[in-house]
């Protein structure tokens, strides 16, 4: 199991706790995509991806994050990120994706930012 995905709700925000690696193939990226699609289908508009336990993302995994963001946006929902490990943070810098994603280091702040 490369990637674990658990969802919980706090104050109307769905927090998706991810753990492991989000990489090419081995269903890990598919899992994230499916989770976000399901949440959107259920009408959720505020999605917070908690990457605190994600040790590694490759370019394919970054693509999944971007796709989740775009799909959500197109449905009037928002996807934000929480708790990036240093390696993941570096990749957002390298790829300039930090200009796309709103990133928090604190769950309470992140939840407030949706209101």
């Amino acid at each position, binding site marked *: 199991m490369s990637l674990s995905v658990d969802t919980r709700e706090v104050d109307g925000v769905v927090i998706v706790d991810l753990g492991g690696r989000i990489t090419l193939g081995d269903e890990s990226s598919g899992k994230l995509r499916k989770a976000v699609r399901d949440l959107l289908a259920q009408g959720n508009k505020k999605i917070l991806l908690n990457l605190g336990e994600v040790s590694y993302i490759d370019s394919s995994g970054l693509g999944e994050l971007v796709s989740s963001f775009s799909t959500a946006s197109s449905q009037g929902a928002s996807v934000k990120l929480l708790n990036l490990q240093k*390696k993941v943070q570096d990749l957002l810098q*390298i790829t300039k994706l930090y200009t796309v994603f709103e990133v928090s280091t604190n769950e309470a702040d992140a939840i407030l930012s949706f209101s």
Partner: protein
Amino acid sequence: MGECRRLELRLDSVISTVDAAELCAKGLAREGGYGEEQVDRLGMAVREAAANAVTHGNAYSAEKSVHFSVEMNDGRLVVKVRDEGEGFDPGEVADPTSVENLLKASGRGLLMMRALVDEVDVRNASPSGTEVVLVLHGPATEEEGQ
């Protein structure tokens, strides 16, 4: 100091090849005395190169192999990933950091490689395909590297 084995593999065009390339490069870099941060950066870069060879170059073809090698050369760690695909012109690849491309789901691999290791060379292989050469300069001296 750091010993380093030379490794040369012919691998199938499957996802496990991407994992194997990453793991082998990281393992040898670690043995070669590189610190964990450099090891991780190399691993990520190798992953991107191998993923391109498997997906774009060989397009998962069962008839095509990925040729992978790692060796220490003049104190530098050199990784080569070669596929048997059509080849491509890296000059034609769009800049993934420009605004119109930021929301694309792909196109960040070469950028990541260049940012993660010290040298990246993408060249046409003969008779066909692409060879990507990734170089890490010598490991930090022992004090720094620990």
